[in-house]
């Protein structure tokens, strides 16, 4: 295969080009859209009206920066959770309280590219508590609370550039990791202002271990491990016998810095990096390593004050593997590995070289033996490189083209996605034998088996998250919907059951039984526990107050009126802060708040919560405000007025709600 040919041009051109090549390879030929869907597929995905899906599927929004939640097997979309990107629907990133969640050392960053959802685990199994997701562009990791389906915590990753190899978890979510995609020069300004051509000399990689507090979900960086300059791609923690180790795929061991598709694809093998994280943890506890510059923000949502809190750290603890033998090893892995997946037993590590035509499977036992007997083939940047043959369990021969990512069922089988040959291949991990293959429509990226990267996969389905949509749905102009496909893996043969469109790029996803999540749901916030500095606990506490140019309104909502709903005495030049407390104490009764001319968004205030909208009136007159979320038969009556007078006006500041005292 000519690699450079394969990887030139766009993905579409690439797929088309490969199609021709594939005709000569038996079993790799993509079939047409008319591939068989058996007659009972519909019954297998039908979820009766009023009943619930069996699984939650947390699907990344890719370059939307969000996380989407679907039900399986129906493929129904329930929610888009705003994470790294602002969301005018909920006011996330627009309300005064939520802005802090998106603050970084670069200021307020209202967008990111979110790739990999990762469910928190207990004893190596998803526990339904949190879902982590990475932000690639301005390196960050977010923690989404599955009790509220809201972003609870976001930490910025210093000394990183492109947080792609992230946020994979250890078996009890002691840590989630962040490996930098781009290596970059680090340190002070002078150390960073270097010629790009000095990559080999000056550019460094690193991987960070982030600790989420088990109670609060607040995140901090425990330590970073410095590495030679390469690109980190994906990673996974060991489990069972390999518990305590972490594996990172890396490419560009050529250390190229231009025309990467050619120059970073020269070597036959790149690496999977094995890190003894238990040793790193111990070294960090012993005070080893160096504090290096690494200013970063850690933002955390306080559910009592209904506000973001930010902690700013100036530096970070960094461990250099050259100072600590036994901490890090490289294992050669064919051709730019992407997936780096550990099977449920923890005995095997599957590398998916995205330019390779085979799948190498490494044995943890052999890795340990090779380390013990010093079976090295040299070093890379001062880090020992183990001999490929010494650590290899075996290779799956000719499985397909362009293996990307592998997940597992509970019966010893692996499911690997093949981007180039556009298919899922099922194979046996011990025997390394291909057992079945199904086409995907089209050009699958990641795939997901419920619990499929954990110790106990639930199996039942494999879901393909595709990169190309082409003709699968009604067209919608130049940009087509994104697409996923659900396959049954209950029988010997995989069976296509359902196509479902997705919102945002479905880069990667994880799924778990709904029963692990449903009992955690927060129905409303207790008004008695609301510690927002501007809460109004009841209409008696509503008021309006001038603080110089700032006008603060303590406002409440309940079906179906605002208090106050008439405000006078606001002047041009004022900044008005509406602090809206929703007095409702029942599930599913948010109220919205919008005011004409607001330059940001609406507020969507959950029961018992307080949120603040800043509004700067620009003209004299009467300005309407209203509830946006249909709340009762009298929702359309849920409205009010603000009178804005010229600067210097003598209209006194006043706020009220008038009742006509209807008789009952």
């Amino acid at each position, binding site marked *: 295969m000519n690699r450079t040919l394969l990887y030139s041009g766009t993905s579409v051109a690439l797929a088309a080009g490969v199609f021709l090549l594939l005709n000569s390879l038996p079993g790799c030929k993509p079939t047409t859209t008319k591939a068989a869907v058996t007659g009972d597929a519909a019954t297998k995905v039908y979820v009766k009206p009023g009943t619930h899906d069996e699984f939650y599927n947390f699907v990344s929004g890719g370059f939307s920066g969000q996380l989407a939640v679907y039900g399986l097997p129906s493929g129904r979309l329930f929610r888009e959770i705003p994470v790294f990107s602002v969301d005018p629907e909920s006011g996330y990133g627009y309300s005064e309280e939520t802005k802090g969640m998106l603050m970084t050392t670069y200021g307020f960053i209202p967008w990111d590219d979110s790739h990999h959802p990762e469910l928190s685990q207990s004893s190596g199994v998803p526990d339904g508590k949190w879902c982590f997701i990475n932000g690639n562009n301005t390196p960050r990791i977010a923690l989404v609370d599955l009790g509220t389906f809201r972003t609870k915590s976001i930490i910025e990753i210093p000394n990183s550039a492109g947080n792609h190899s992230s946020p994979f978890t250890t078996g009890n979510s002691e840590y989630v990791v962040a490996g930098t995609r781009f290596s970059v020069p680090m340190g002070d300004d002078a150390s960073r202002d270097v010629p790009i051509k000095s990559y080999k000399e000056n550019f460094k990689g690193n991987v960070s271990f982030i600790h989420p507090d088990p109670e609060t979900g607040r995140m901090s960086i425990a330590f970073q491990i410095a590495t030679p300059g390469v690109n980190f791609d994906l990673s996974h923690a060991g489990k069972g016998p390999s518990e305590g180790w972490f594996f990172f795929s890396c490419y560009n061991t050529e250390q190229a810095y231009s025309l990467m598709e050619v120059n970073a694809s020269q070597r036959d093998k790149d690496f999977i990096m094995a890190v003894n994280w238990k040793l790193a943890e111990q070294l960090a506890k012993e005070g080893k390593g160096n504090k290096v510059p690494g200013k970063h923000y850690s933002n955390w949502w306080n559910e009592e004050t209904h506000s973001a809190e930010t902690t700013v750290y100036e530096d970070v603890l960094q461990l250099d593997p050259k100072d600590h033998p036994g901490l890090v090893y490289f294992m050669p892995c064919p051709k730019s590995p992407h997936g780096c997946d550990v099977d449920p037993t923890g005995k095997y590590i599957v590398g998916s070289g995205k330019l390779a035509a085979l799948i190498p499977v490494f044995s943890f036992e052999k890795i340990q033996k090779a380390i013990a007997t010093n079976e090295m083939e040299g070093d890379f940047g001062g880090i020992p490189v183990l001999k490929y043959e010494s650590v290899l369990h075996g290779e799956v021969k000719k499985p397909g083209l362009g293996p990307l990512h592998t997940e597992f069922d509970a019966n010893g089988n692996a499911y690997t996605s093949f981007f180039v040959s556009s298919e899922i291949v099922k194979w046996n991990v011990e025997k390394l034998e291909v057992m079945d293959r199904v086409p995907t429509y089209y050009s699958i990226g990641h795939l997901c088996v419920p619990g499929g990267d954990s110790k106990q996969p639930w199996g039942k389905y494999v879901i393909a998250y595709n990169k190309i949509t082409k003709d699968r749905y009604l067209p919608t102009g130049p940009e087509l919907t994104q697409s996923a496909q659900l396959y049954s893996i209950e029988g010997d043969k995989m069976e296509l059951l359902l196509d479902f469109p997705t919102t945002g790029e479905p880069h990667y996803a994880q799924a778990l039984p709904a029963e692990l999540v449903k009992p955690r749901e927060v129905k409303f916030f207790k008004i*008695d526990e609301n510690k927002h500095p501007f809460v109004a606990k009841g209409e008696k506490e509503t008021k309006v107050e001038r603080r110089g140019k700032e006008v603060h309104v303590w406002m409440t909502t309940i079906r179906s009126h605002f208090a106050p709903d008439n405000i006078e005495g606001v002047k041009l030049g004022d900044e008005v802060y509406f602090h809206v407390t929703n007095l409702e104490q029942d599930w599913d009764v948010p109220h919205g708040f919008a005011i004409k001319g607001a330059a940001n968004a609406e507020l969507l205030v959950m029961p018992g919560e307080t949120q603040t909208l800043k509004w700067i009136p620009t003209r004299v007159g009467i300005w309407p405000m209203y509830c946006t979320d249909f709340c009762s038969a009298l929702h359309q009556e849920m409205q009010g007025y603000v009178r804005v007078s010229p600067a210097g006006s003598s209209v006194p500041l006043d706020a009220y709600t008038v*009742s006509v*005292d209807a008789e009952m």
Partner: protein
Amino acid sequence: MTTIWKTSIAIVLVGSLLACGGGDKPSQPPGASAGAQSPEAGTSVQSPKVEGLITAADLQLGEVDAAMAEKGKITYDVKCQACHSTGANRVVGPGWKGLVTKREPAWIMNMIMNIDVMLESDPEAQKLLEECLVRMPNQNLSKDEAREVLEFMRTL
């Protein structure tokens, strides 16, 4: 918004359409059990027997307990006052002055704690919805809090 709201809209619409149809009696909203009579306003009625509802036997009302009523007032200010006055006038829902003489204590407790069941099964609750047009919010009071609110009502 969920089906709860759609249900409430349906009730309201159907209720008002029928009312506008020129009937001289309040029409029976859907969901009311067949044969349920809509009693005269102001009379005290027993809720139909529905499992889980609070009954008169569950409540022991003696002399008004001032300390309890005071706690009830605190809850009222936060969770009830937006819609109920302490006078006889209606704001969104009925005023509370003299309410305990018009309604059974258990009925009041159920309106606070079991509003969904009441709107499904109780003709008086359904009649109130026709008049007020807003489903009474479930403010998720505990039984003790609801009892304290009832005690506060007894002082009015």
